[in-house]
């Protein structure tokens, strides 16, 4: 983070075309599960001849991530997000496929690899439950051999951005979830990793807590150029932080690209809310926009909502037609929310289901 800008900026002058920092090819992970039989007799049979079946949690996933990118990795529960992160962090060994992070293979030379990455699991802390925050950081400083000056600079940054000095002397178990998450983020960045993996960093946080975390992540992305992969259920995180998203479903990559491209591709409708001066039925408005591919929701009175697709017609065209055709007092144009987009991807027919 602070103090690391100079050395990092040199590395980020990538050749045109972009060199990837994280390279994933054909990543696959199977879990072998035992299907339990019922009853005591079944239990005995299980002992002798267990019914094993294989669950493919991650299936042939490939992507590249350039230095300094912040990528959202999203998917439903059980889609394979955490399994992917665990393979990228070296916790799990894949069944097949290759991963290279800055030239290192995560599950080989584990100790060396962990020095280069930071990891935050929203569900559980990486800190010592009973130690005071300041002692935890002291221990991490020793473990990662962080030089004194870097440590001081890092702690200053964390105090400025996360105000962790407010609870430095409390044991981790006494922290609120929001405070704990701030500590976990700081702890993961203390040794200035080039890559940060965040698994559900805002889970369980209230609105203010979420906003704090997002604000901090934006700062470190801009200041330190840390490369971040972020999994989340809260699509607000993605919308506020990431330009690029990778959507995974049933272990496979369904989409990898710009958030904007995603909006276009799924063709989720844009929503135009209209407030009129005089009450009318929606059928009247449909007449006004009869020439345009716009659909009005059934309604009476002053408030109406129209839906249309950006590919079919521009917002300006719809608004112009409407203002010319009737007396409008207020207008509001809403982009499709990202969770609707994701939901529509999941509904996408033609994908195999269980």
């Amino acid at each position, binding site marked *: 983070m602070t103090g690391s800008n100079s050395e990092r900026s040199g590395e980020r002058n990538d050749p045109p075309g972009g060199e990837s920092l994280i390279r994933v090819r054909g990543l696959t992970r199977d*879990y072998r599960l035992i299907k339990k039989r019922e009853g005591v007799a079944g239990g005995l049979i299980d002992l002798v001849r267990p019914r094993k079946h294989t669950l493919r*949690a991650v299936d042939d996933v490939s992507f590249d991530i350039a230095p300094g990118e912040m990528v959202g990795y999203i998917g439903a*529960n*059980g*889609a*394979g*997000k*955490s*399994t992917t992160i*665990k393979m990228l*962090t*070296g*916790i*799990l*060994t894949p069944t097949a496929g290759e991963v290279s*992070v*800055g*030239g*290192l293979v995560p599950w080989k030379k*584990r*100790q*060396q690899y*962990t*020095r*280069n990455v930071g*990891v935050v*699991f929203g*569900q*559980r802390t*990486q800190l*010592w439950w*009973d*130690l005071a925050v300041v*002692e935890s950081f002291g*221990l991490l400083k*020793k*473990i*990662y*051999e962080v030089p004194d000056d870097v440590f001081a600079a890092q702690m200053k940054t964390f105090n400025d951005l996360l105000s962790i000095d407010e609870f430095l002397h409390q044991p981790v178990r006494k922290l609120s979830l929001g405070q704990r998450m701030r500590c976990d983020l700081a702890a993961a960045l203390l040794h200035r990793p*080039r890559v940060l993996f965040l698994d559900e960093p805002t889970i369980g946080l209230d609105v203010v807590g979420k906003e704090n975390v997002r604000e901090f992540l934006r700062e470190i992305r801009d200041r330190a150029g840390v490369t971040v992969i972020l999994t989340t259920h809260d699509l607000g995180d993605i919308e506020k932080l990431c330009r690029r998203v990778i959507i995974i479903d049933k272990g496979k990559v369904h989409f990898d690209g710009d958030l904007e491209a995603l909006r276009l591709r799924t063709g989720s409708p844009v929503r135009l809310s209209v407030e009129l001066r005089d009450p009318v039925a929606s059928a009247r408005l449909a007449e006004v926009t009869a020439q345009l591919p716009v659909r009005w929701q059934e309604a009476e009175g002053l408030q109406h909502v129209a839906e249309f697709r950006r590919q079919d017609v521009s917002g300006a065209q719809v608004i112009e037609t409407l203002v010319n055709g009737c007396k409008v007092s207020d207008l509001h144009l809403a982009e499709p929310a990202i969770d609707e987009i994701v939901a529509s991807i999941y509904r996408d027919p033609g994908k195999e289901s269980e």
Partner: protein
Amino acid sequence: MSDASTRDRGFFGETIRQGRIFVWYFAQFVKMRLAYRTDFVIDALAVMFSALVQLAVLLTLFNKVEALKGWSFEQVLFIYGFSLVPLGLFNLCAVNLYRFADAFIIEGRFDRVLLRPLNTLAQVLLESFNISAFNEMGLGLALMIYAGRKLSLSWGIEEILALMVLAISSSLVYSGVFLAITSVSFWQEDRMGLAPPVYNVIRFSRYPITIFGAPVRFFLTFVLPFAWVAFYPATWFIGSPEFARWAYFTPLVGGIVFGGAVLIWSRGVRNYSSTGS
């Protein structure tokens, strides 16, 4: 990506570095434990109580009989005293082994262990300590000194060195056996069903094994080698030449058992499949 300059200290350099960190772990832990003084006192009392109960069993036994298959009360007491020292050393670090399946595998704390640039086994063994195990060792030493005096055993440099080497070797036998059992959790997430019965076998190992029949003796020597945690090494001190010769093999047995367990552990780590999706 890798800063080779600070990393290439070689195996020994790195071991020393990590050793220092774990000394720090220990210091932190003691500091933290002392903050909960009542817990600390209760733990200490519990350990003393269970040791004293076992001692009472010995005393009762020798109230009825003069000797046990030729072993005097003082000799048996010495063997028991010796057994407490390696057991204490083992118990000091074994806290996390007992709860490994629950706390590390099922709860997923092992993820964190894998994310740190430190040896995995050292992290598990040296992150939590049972400080009251010092009481166990203290009681053991006291019994050995008391029984030793009755047996007119003189404590010279040689005896003290032997005690250190043998106690550490014996604690490696304990650690190896329980580490191997614990490592099974990497494959089988069910609670460690094996540990309690095996732990009970320790009790047998505190008596001179000649009181048992040949099959039990064989079992305790070669299968579940708990004869090496008290009987064989202790006989080196109390002058029973027939078995004292066996005592010299204690470090070898400790090394083999613990080394084998570390191999099982490493295979388990590779097999670790974490929790959740």
